């Protein structure tokens, strides 16, 4: 097996991975950096982000306000020291991106423009029309081309971490073109492999968001944190889950039920604000968890509109007018017309909540370091945690930058702290095992199980048991089901025996990652007997700060469900309080 020697290897070339790579290249031009990604960097799912990235820049805003919005929005499950670091670094990172050429939308005087976003008390979301993530990703990718020390391994699929001497020292990755396994040997590894929304059937996440990075770390012994918190975005296109950005509501779009009532006022986010004059943190600009939950209640009451794609509510943007929609929300209009055949300039758009983001992920400390020495994580796959129980829209893109860079700094410091030399034989043996695991998939005779069959069952049970509202009973069933699926997974085989660009094989590996992550979600949710942020239990409707103002940590077991442990939340200056989204009252 070919061994690729590097100093620091990064798994994932989305926003977080690219930011880390650039930071490393800038800190030390002599460093050998391997940037490994299962897709070409600009295909990473950061490109799909529409709305924008939050950072304090305007004079009417303050770091404290951003802090409070983030911590309150996260239902006090965020680590406040991490949030503090985050909000401090946020503006610098966004300016840095501006200096790299990101085409942020502008004010007439040439300074960057900001837009309102859900759960934010003040306009602070930097945006590049409604293609913010796209522009961030392409700016980062193009900037990364400046640095010869960033060696890219595009279309390499990381399969297992190599851990010896209690330290992470690299990983194995499949070169997708050739089907050959390569051993990446590194002094430190950063995982930035994105989210895992694909464990659900209805999601805004692209096909590549299969939790591989989380599973890599998890299987190597690093725990997954707060996995039970899964964010539903309230406004997805009903037929395929394509996201309509929160910017729609930020610009003044309103949500209506079948009677044309702005139903959010019935769920503690009112009183009603005038149409076309959105008020921050009120009504349509409430946080995502609340909005998605209101949908569920409306559905229970029979107030939703039934469409051929299921129950929906309506997002009405007609009053914004064609000019503003074209200028601020061109992609939204294009998506509605293309994929739904409806024009938001002319008619209200049916939408429903859709799985969007994993608040949980690989447990890291404030330095982006995991408990496994030598392993760092950043981006959606990591849980620092700044997002707590519910991420505020537009904090995630900024998080990629802030903690992507932080991970790079920590990894470099770790590397420079002097390490014992690697035991090559031990690593080679592990790499060999990893290769055999892939070989076994080829050799296994065709059996009963199909990859698609298992995947469908997994998605179904996740939606049934671990959706917007959960019950102990439903979760127990889902846990059982996932445990069963993990067992059955052992029996899968692949039909495609070719080594070249074998997507059958990749889907098999991705399914394995998804099942591991899904189990952490389900078990974490079953054991969290309270309602907080995005995790809502019908059998435990209150928040329980007494017992559960804690992060959950799921530890992997190859055959059994994960062991769940808890860790205190870091609270520095904001004591848990009431999340108030009825700003219009005052």
């Amino acid at each position, binding site marked *: 097996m070919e061994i690729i020697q590097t100093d620091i290897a990064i798994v994932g070339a989305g926003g977080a991975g690219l930011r880390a790579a650039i930071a490393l290249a800038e800190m030390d031009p002599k460093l050998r950096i391997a940037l490994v990604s299962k897709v070409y960097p600009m295909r990473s799912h950061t490109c799909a982000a529409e709305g924008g990235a939050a950072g304090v820049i305007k004079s009417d805003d303050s770091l404290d306000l951003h802090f409070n919005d983030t911590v309150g929005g996260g239902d006090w499950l965020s680590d406040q020291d991490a949030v503090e670091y985050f909000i401090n670094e946020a503006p610098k990172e966004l300016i840095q991106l501006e200096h790299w050429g990101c085409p942020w*939308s*502008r004010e007439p005087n040439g300074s960057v423009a900001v837009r309102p976003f859900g759960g934010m008390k003040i306009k602070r979301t930097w945006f590049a029309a409604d293609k913010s993530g796209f522009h961030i990703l392409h700016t980062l990718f*193009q*900037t990364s081309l400046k640095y010869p020390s960033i060696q890219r391994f595009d279309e390499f699929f990381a399969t297992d971490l190599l851990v010896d001497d209690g330290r992470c020292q690299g990983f194995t990755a499949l070169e997708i073109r050739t089907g050959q396994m390569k051993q990446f040997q590194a002094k430190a590894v950063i995982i930035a492999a994105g989210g895992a929304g694909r464990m659900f059937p209805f999601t805004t996440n692209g096909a590549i968001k299969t939790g591989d990075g989380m599973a890599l770390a998890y299987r190597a012994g690093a725990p997954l944190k707060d996995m039970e918190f899964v964010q539903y975005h309230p406004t997805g296109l009903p037929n395929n889950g394509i996201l309509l950005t929160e910017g729609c509501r930020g610009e003044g779009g309103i949500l209506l039920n079948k009677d044309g009532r702005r139903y959010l006022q019935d769920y503690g986010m009112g009183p009603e604000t005038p149409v076309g004059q959105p008020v921050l943190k009120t009504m349509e600009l409430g946080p995502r968890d609340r909005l998605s939950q209101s949908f569920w209640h409306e559905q229970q009451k029979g107030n939703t509109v039934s469409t051929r794609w299921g129950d929906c509510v309506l997002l009405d943007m007609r009053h914004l007018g064609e000019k503003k929609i074209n200028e601020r929300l061109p992609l939204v209009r294009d998506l509605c017309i293309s994929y739904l055949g409806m024009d938001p300039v002319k008619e209200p758009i049916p939408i429903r909540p859709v799985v969007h983001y994993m608040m949980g992920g690989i447990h890291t400390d404030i330095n982006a370091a995991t408990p496994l020495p030598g392993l760092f994580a950043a981006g959606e796959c990591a849980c620092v945690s700044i997002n707590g129980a519910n991420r505020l829209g537009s904090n995630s893109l900024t998080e990629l930058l802030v903690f992507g860079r932080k991970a790079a700094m920590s990894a470099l410091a770790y590397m420079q702290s002097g390490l014992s030399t690697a035991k090559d034989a031990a690593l080679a043996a592990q790499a060999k095992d990893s290769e055999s695991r892939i070989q076994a998939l080829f050799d296994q005779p065709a059996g009963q199980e199909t*990859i*698609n069959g298992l995947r469908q069952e997994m998605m179904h049970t996740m939606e049934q048991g671990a959706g917007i509202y959960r019950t102990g009973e439903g979760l127990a069933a889902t846990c059982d089901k996932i445990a069963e699926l993990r067992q059955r997974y052992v029996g899968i085989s692949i039909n495609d025996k*070719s080594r070249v660009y*074998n997507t059958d094989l990749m889907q098999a590996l991705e399914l394995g990652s998804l099942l591991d992550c899904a189990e952490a979600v389900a078990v974490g949710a079953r054991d969290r007997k309270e309602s907080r942020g995005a995790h809502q239990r019908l059998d435990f409707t209150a928040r329980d700060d007494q017992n559960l103002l804690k992060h959950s940590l799921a530890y992997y077991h190859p055959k059994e469900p994960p062991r769940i442990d808890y860790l205190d939340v870091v609270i520095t200056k904001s004591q848990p309080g009431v999340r108030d989204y009825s700003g219009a009252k005052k």
Partner: protein
Amino acid sequence: MSERQIELEVLRYDPEKDSAPRFQTYSVPCLNEWVVLDALNYVKENLDTTLSYRWSCHMAVCGSCGMMINGEPKLACKAFIHEYSDKIRVEPLAHFPIERDLVTVIEDFIGKLSSVKPYLIPKDDKPISAGEFKQTPAELIKFKQYTLCINCMLCYAACPQYGLVPEFVGPAAIALAHRYNQDSRDGGRDARQEVVASNEGVWECSFVGACSEVCPKHVDPAGALQQVKVASTIDWYKEHLMPWVKK
């Protein structure tokens, strides 16, 4: 929504087995609102797991799923079934070597993209602490269109000159160079000209215009290329006839 039975004729090529590509036909029950990518996913999930193709976002933004659909370069996730008859032919993007089935080798494109120095080379250095560069909406709009490229390579598949002269740097890469040249914050045009203004650069383009016709993001690379030609020509005259004039 009505269901339709579509004959999907897909090019297959497995380098380990086949010496040349062949077509395989799948009969796929499609909803009228589907895109061709949905039909391919149906095949992959239900009929034949060995079919290989790239995709991720399903919303025309990641640029992975470019392929020839009835001979036209298209994003499979933006090729609507209702616009086609009951027989649809799907092939890998033209002008690129076929790795496997619908997957092409795109290293050449990536290399060309990298060769034009597609990053901001600031006119003036400015520390982060000094804040952002000012850029008015009028300055932004000057290059905005060229930032919209998703690197889907449909333009390369449409451009006959790229097919005929593989050295041609090609539409998307040059449009990207133009994007930075036009940016009020940038001062790197000279550095980019070496590649862009070479014979293999913009001068291999004969303004066929096919690139802009197929571009799903309305980047209009053809326009960018002509503008680069005009600017490079002015450069040339300045350099050769008026060497004393500083650019």
